[in-house]
């Protein structure tokens, strides 16, 4: 029997090597810039003439960035067990998402993402965040320009959950994860609001961003905008859902995920050795004869 302490020392499921880490960092910097551009954009005549185009450039850039990062993380090859786990957990997340969509602010997608990121490590958490939202968008026909931005934001949520300190166990662990869950609920809402901000208000209301104004000034305007539109309703609802789900279901779900990780024995090397030359080849006859009707 393995104690929880040794279980936690296990290798992460999708280890991020040095090169993918560099790529992920660069892409995250570029991604954050594409979320926060209204705060920093300069008031040059050329830029204001293209203010309407700037979001479009970013909308085209983000999918490419995301594809490059995901390709880089999976460049070492994802083994079958990790891939099946990724698929099944994405399906659960995608299935959980519409549960709350109708009710104000009850968002259930992050709770399992945080726990899975904690158990399976940062790389798995990042990819799971992306695939969950992608699968959910495909199931509900919700593919659009916002999707890559949602994907990378929820990827960061899973990544952060995997990077939390390893030490705490038991109640301390649940308390830490709950605090993190509340934090990311507000953080995700903040990021997505920042992305929608130029689209929602346009450029000429009192709550719109002013290109070239001091950062704090624009941040102030944005704070009013986000308080008015969503912080009290959606984001608080999401935070409460996260906290309640993590406190009530967290310990049991963590146990289930850890048991699965132990049984799957991720990281155990798989070697394929060729059969000795004298051994009979066990190939069915049907496969060795060419099918009829073809040259």
């Amino acid at each position, binding site marked *: 029997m393995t104690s929880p302490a040794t279980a936690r020392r296990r290798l992460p499921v999708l280890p991020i090597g040095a*090169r993918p880490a560099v*790529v992920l960092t660069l892409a995250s910097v*570029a991604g954050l*810039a594409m979320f926060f*551009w209204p705060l920093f954009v*300069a*008031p*040059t005549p050329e*830029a204001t003439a293209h203010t*309407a185009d700037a979001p*479009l*450039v970013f909308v085209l*850039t983000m999918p*490419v*960035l995301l*594809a*490059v990062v*995901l*390709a880089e993380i*999976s*460049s070492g090859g*994802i*083994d*079958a*067990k990790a*891939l*099946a*786990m*990724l*698929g*099944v*957990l*994405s*399906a*659960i997340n995608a*299935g959980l998402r519409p549960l709350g969509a109708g009710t104000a602010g009850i968002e259930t997608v992050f709770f399992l993402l945080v726990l899975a990121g904690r158990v399976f490590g940062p790389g798995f958490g990042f*990819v799971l965040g992306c*695939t969950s939202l992608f*699968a959910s968008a*495909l*199931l509900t*026909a919700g*593919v*659009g320009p916002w999707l890559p931005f949602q994907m990378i934001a929820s990827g960061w949520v899973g990544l952060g959950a995997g990077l939390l300190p390893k030490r705490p166990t038991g109640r301390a662990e649940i308390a830490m994860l709950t605090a993190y869950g509340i934090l990311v609920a507000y953080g995700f809402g903040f990021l997505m609001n920042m992305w929608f901000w130029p*689209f929602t*208000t*346009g450029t000429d*209301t*009192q*709550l719109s961003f002013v290109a070239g104004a001091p950062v704090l*000034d624009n941040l*102030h305007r944005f704070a*009013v905008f986000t308080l008015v539109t969503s912080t009290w309703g959606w984001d608080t609802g999401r935070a409460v859902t996260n906290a309640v789900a993590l406190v009530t*279901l967290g310990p049991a*779900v963590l146990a*289930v995920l850890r*048991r*699965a990780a132990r*049984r*799957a024995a991720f990281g155990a090397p798989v070697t394929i050795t060729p059969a000795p030359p004298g051994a009979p080849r066990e190939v069915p006859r049907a496969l060795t004869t060419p099918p009829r009707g073809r040259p």
Partner: protein
Amino acid sequence: MRALPRSVHPGAWWLWALGLAAAASRTANPVLLVMILAVAGFVVTQRRDHAPWALAFRMYLVLGAVIVAMRVVFRIVFGGGQGDTVLFTLPEIPLPHWVAGVRLLGPVAAEQLLGGLYDGLRLATMVACVGAANALANPKRMLKALPGALHEIGTSVVVALSVAPQLVESVQRVRRARLLRGGTVRRGLRGTDALRGIVIPVLEDAMNRSLALAAAMASHGYGHTGRTAPRTRALTGALVITGLLGVCGGLYGVMGASTPGYLGTPLLLAGLALAGCGFVLGGRRVTRTTYRPDPWRGAEWLVTVAGLASAGLMYLASRTDATSLYPSLAPLAWPEVALLPAVAALVGVVPAWLAPGPPRQAVRP
């Protein structure tokens, strides 16, 4: 001659829809925008099949209406009263200083309302074009067309899409088992107990299912990818990292004021191109065959060209005659439509007649 019914490559529908969206992004003329909306809607009704995602278009129209309403309401509440033609005046509510000195309501001008309406309508049209692509393109076939470097991620999404319906069945089985054991499934004070009694078994079931699936995949030879030469790997890494550095620099250039022009969009595009080369090169690692690949034939070219022609003609119009694309707000004037933009808006309708129709539902004997 009528083309045989078959499903058109999803990539073609996406290119068509993106072309229409790009055309819509070039104009704020409500007449042109409504024409593009009508084109997208007509093609969707003519060429969608009976799959569940084909009903998504209506949802996007509702979303577009919400966008327009939001824009107009924001102009009324937070508009700050710009414009001369005041339609009516609402009582002003000054807010305290800490909310950025915002003043609510106040006089509402026609320029302000129309500006919000045009802007919102442009965004709503672009969203509706995306919705048309969602309704027309088959997402499962789209996943098949993912490039090689994303093969594994695509496979896991395929797993997710096919496991999702089984979860419903799993939930029902667990509930039935609970009832048979004399447990409760009702909500209320003991709701969390019941929730835990359902969530944990379903999750455990799903974990077992994933291990069984992994065993099945391994026994079918999944994951036996070819090896890449170290030089190729190094080249891929160098391309990707240089490209991303270029993207970061380009973004800085796009937003900055004092940066020279060549550090902006050109650097961004060069960075994206480099990273894309690395992406394609990295994808060579995966060699695979596709079961029943979607062909790219004349119909796909036709659909793509129709969308891109719409974008191209609208761009041409914005270069030659930009005034007809942006109706004047000061002084207020009725929007007018010139010939070239109208053709650009309408050329996207061609696939409604010339693309092959959706395959009929198979009739079971």
